[in-house]
């Protein structure tokens, strides 16, 4: 077990590490939850349930907990989010089912945008480092997380993986989640947006079959639209379904193979990245003015 944050069980591995080795803990860990719980005093009564037993006869008692099951993950996610904000990094959590063309879309994006601004990738898969190798072939820094039996990335894994990347100011960090439309919806990684990728070979009812994921996503990329002439896919119905579960979702139709629509996606990326930096420049200027006063 890691003595710094108590992690270590399970089968997940960060590429290049056999054991969960911690040499430096650059990222801020969430504070240990050691403050007294506010419910402790009033609900920690030493009686059995429903007061069925006389005091002292039965050693059982009720303890109020009132904690989110994902509370710990959310603490790590908050720490990641704070770190990304501090560094001026735009972190995106790419989610989809397996085979949606996520890695192809990602490699094309990286090839097209490499050199325009810093990029980095965290790759999540159950096994193999093949995807990280595909990414590195584009010249972009990438680190693989193998989740073992895990079906999703969690914020703790991402926090450690991010330590292995040189996240420069203005960097766009793409976190490619495990291909799965169910579990990753619940696990906040500290990203700014979830980007859902749905290919039109999958069927137009995916948004209502897996509503949690489409509800959690800020942007939907409808991929493989070059195949539209060969398929019976009703784009209007699909976008209608997506908006039913998430009225605010943005939708871009594109094809990573033909390149159609990719420019819109890049525009969205540039705008998100710039808005992240605008806040920083304001902060920097404000503190500069403060110093001059």
């Amino acid at each position, binding site marked *: 077990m890691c003595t710094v944050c108590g992690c270590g069980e399970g089968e997940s591995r960060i590429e290049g590490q056999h054991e969960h080795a911690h040499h430096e803990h650059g990222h801020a860990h969430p504070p240990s939850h050691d403050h007294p719980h506010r419910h402790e005093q009033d609900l920690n009564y030493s009686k059995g349930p429903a007061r069925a037993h006389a005091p002292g006869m039965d050693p059982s008692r*009720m303890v109020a907990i*009132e904690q*989110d*099951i994902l509370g*710990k993950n959310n603490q790590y996610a908050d720490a990641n989010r704070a770190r990304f904000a501090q560094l001026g990094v735009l972190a995106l959590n790419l989610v989809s089912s397996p085979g949606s063309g996520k890695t192809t879309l990602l490699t094309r994006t990286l090839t097209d945008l490499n050199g325009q601004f810093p990029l980095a990738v965290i790759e999540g898969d159950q096994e193999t480092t093949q995807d990280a190798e595909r990414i590195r072939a584009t010249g972009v820094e990438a680190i693989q997380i193998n989740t073992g039996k895990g*079906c*999703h990335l969690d914020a703790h894994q991402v926090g450690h993986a991010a330590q292995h990347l040189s996240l420069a100011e203005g960097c766009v960090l793409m976190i490619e989640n495990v291909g799965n439309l169910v579990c990753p919806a*619940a696990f906040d990684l500290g990203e700014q947006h979830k980007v859902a990728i749905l290919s039109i070979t999958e069927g137009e009812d995916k948004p209502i079959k897996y*509503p949690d994921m489409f509800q959690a996503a800020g942007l939907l990329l409808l991929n493989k639209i070059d195949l539209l002439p060969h398929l019976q896919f009703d784009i209007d119905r699909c976008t209608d379904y997506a908006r039913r579960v998430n009225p605010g979702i943005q939708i871009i139709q594109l094809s990573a193979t033909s390149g159609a629509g990719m420019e819109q996606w890049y525009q969205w990326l540039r705008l998100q990245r710039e808005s992240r930096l605008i806040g920083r420049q304001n902060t920097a200027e404000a503190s500069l003015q403060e110093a001059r006063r």
Partner: protein
Amino acid sequence: MHEMALCESVLQVLESEARKQGFERIRTVWLEIGELANVEISAMAFSFDVVSRNSLADGSALEIIRVPGTAWCMQCGKTVSIQQRFDACPECGSYQLQVTAGEEMRIKELEVE
């Protein structure tokens, strides 16, 4: 099967609460799971049995409190009940709904000894 991961998180909380509040065994765990939360109750029960084996919660009962789904309808301007995320407003048929309850995944309380 993220129910397994959820149960591992539950057990982590139980173990840390046991240290803080000084108990050694758990008889019953009450979880509050919203009807819109992406959780399969039977998978949760199965995973909990597996995860809690040889722990302080070994053999404990898992009780689930379901929280009904409700949403704020932006068209009607009131709270309505929904069964699924993509449900339309039962009163006006609009999909402009903001979920207000039913997404809970909380550890509510424990019976311990």
